[in-house]
């Protein structure tokens, strides 16, 4: 599916200061019954966001009116667990374009890059600085520059570089996905397939 190109993003962020957030928290399995990609944003962090009677949980950060923006800032080891791409759809459809953490689970990171959410991995210390800044001043802007691969935050002179595979970077900057690439090499794939023994 085509997604919005990503170059430079300047936005406020939402601080989710919890470690090891797994995909079952991002979107619980019972909301995976769709046959189309619609409405996943409604169930993002469902059980942390809502009480069992569907009223809002006041102490959850997504329900805190002070915080908003296109950047989700999350504790270490974000996105572990299942391969459900639905988790990233929920994040994207909710309006986040970037997740910042000090560590990401593999499949989650891959899924992000495939659908246009930029996973930005920074050091534990810088992550803590960002958490502190947003909590002090919720309107603090974070700048993610994909071109120079740098994250900075207003009011702090410290910046950090982040890694991204050059091929994936190109894709993100242009809103391309891997399927387009693969479809263009079908004849090469056919030749390869003919040699597979079983």
């Amino acid at each position, binding site marked *: 599916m085509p997604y919005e190109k990503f170059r430079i993003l300047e936005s406020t962020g939402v601080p989710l200061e919890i470690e090891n957030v797994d995909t079952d928290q991002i979107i619980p*399995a019972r909301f995976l019954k769709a046959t189309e990609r619609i409405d996943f944003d409604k169930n993002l962090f469902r059980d942390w966001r809502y009480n069992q009677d569907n009223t809002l949980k006041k102490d959850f950060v997504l329900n805190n009116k002070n915080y908003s923006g296109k950047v989700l800032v999350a504790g270490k080891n974000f996105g572990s667990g299942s*391969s459900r*791409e639905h988790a990233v759809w929920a994040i994207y459809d909710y309006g986040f374009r970037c997740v910042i953490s000090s560590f990401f689970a593999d499949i989650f990171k891959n899924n992000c890059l495939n659908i246009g959410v930029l996973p930005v991995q920074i050091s534990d210390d810088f992550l803590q600085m960002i958490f502190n800044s947003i909590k002090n001043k919720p309107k603090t802007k974070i700048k993610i520059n994909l071109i120079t691969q740098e994250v900075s935050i207003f009011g702090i002179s410290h910046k950090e570089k982040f890694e991204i595979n050059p091929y994936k970077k190109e894709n993100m900057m242009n809103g391309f996905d891997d399927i387009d690439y693969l479809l263009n090499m079908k004849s090469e794939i056919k030749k390869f397939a003919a040699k597979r023994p079983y």
Partner: protein
Amino acid sequence: MNNKKTLFDKIWDSHVVRKIDNGPDVLFIDRHLIHEVTSPVAFLGLKNRRQNVMYPNLTFATADHNTPTINQHLPIKDPLSAKQLQTLQDNTKKHDIVFWGLGHKKNGIVHVIGPESGITLPGTTIVCGDSHTSTHGAFGAIAFGIGTSEVEMVLSTQCIMQPKPKSMRININGKLGDSVTPKDVALYIISKLSTSGATGYFVEYSGNVFSDMSMEGRMTVCNLSIEMGARGGLIAPDKKTIEYVKNREYTPKGDNLSKATKYWSTLHTDEGAVFDKEFDFNSSDIEPMVTFGTNPGMGISISGKIPKIDSEKRNYSSYSKSLKYMGYEIGDKMLGKKVDYVFLGSCTNGRIEDFRTFSKITKGFRKANNVIAWLVPGSHRVLNQIKNEGILEDLEASGFKVREPGCSACLAMNEDKIPPGKYVISTSNRNFEGRQGPGARTILASPAVAAAAAITGKITDPRKL
């Protein structure tokens, strides 16, 4: 230069269609497994791009995640689940893909039926939109979970694009103690490495602890690789592997089998090959394990106490949150803790060997009155074996019922949900908050520990029953 290759290198390198400079490898996929939950949007993508399935004979479909485990012959009550299953049926029919739907004699959990049918073979690449695809690594295959975009890629081009992961080897030699099962070995490793300790790596398990295991046991270990963050895990194929795969429906026959076997015998890590990371553990340190928190890395030996965590550490608040969710406190002993539910099943421990272990322990005892037990075989084939081996009779004599196959309470997408606040000893793979139902409290353990708890109604050492 060192031209010694790891097992992983050998398989990976032989599947690279194209190497992209500074980019991922284009990897050919031999076997693609699909199910109702992660495939519908992929088929939709295919339709939007006006593509067909490139090699329908390399994709296999089952219904498992969303299916009921009682009265499977009746229409499905939940309209959304019903629609998802119908969509898979329509998609597979349209694209000429083998589909073993609900009630089909080959139906079952995707990672149980793959090996059973000989779809899983040594030296292959296998993917599925499910993270526990790592299970198939037990056969010396590169098998891993993918997202829905990648499911679409495989359907339309039989390839995905992946950077080659780093390599890790975990060595354990020696003998395992009484009632120490492959599940305990895996939970032990995860407790040492943490849930992110192998992120970015593909793991080879090596040493006689693994080679002594049955294929079922190896599947349990490889299945849990993902829980330490690894993309997958694998074990070199040997005689046991070949014994298991031969004569199965999709396994090569005759000459092709001899050729294949010859190739499979080359599938091992060369002496002197270098891994990016290597760990050694002692088999004698491993005891029956249980988890006490809300990720699979929070495991201890069954006789242990919930450990303290350094309050200086950053994850202190996550740790406390986790214990609060479980209703436990630091210093608590796990032995004797109350259990409300027992779940035997899932692609981790829903195979015949798991039912054998469970029933061997429960035989001659009665199920505790305060325990609700859900025993869910991984497939129809497992269910039939349970019947044929007389296990069903034994279980029923102890007051247990056996349900119909499916993922069931492993992810609680169907109606098999553990109620809020209740404790479940589960042989599945994830103890995340709400994984087995909103508010459910999961203690991961082996079938042996689950069996002991089912008899006593509390966490019990199976060796002391």
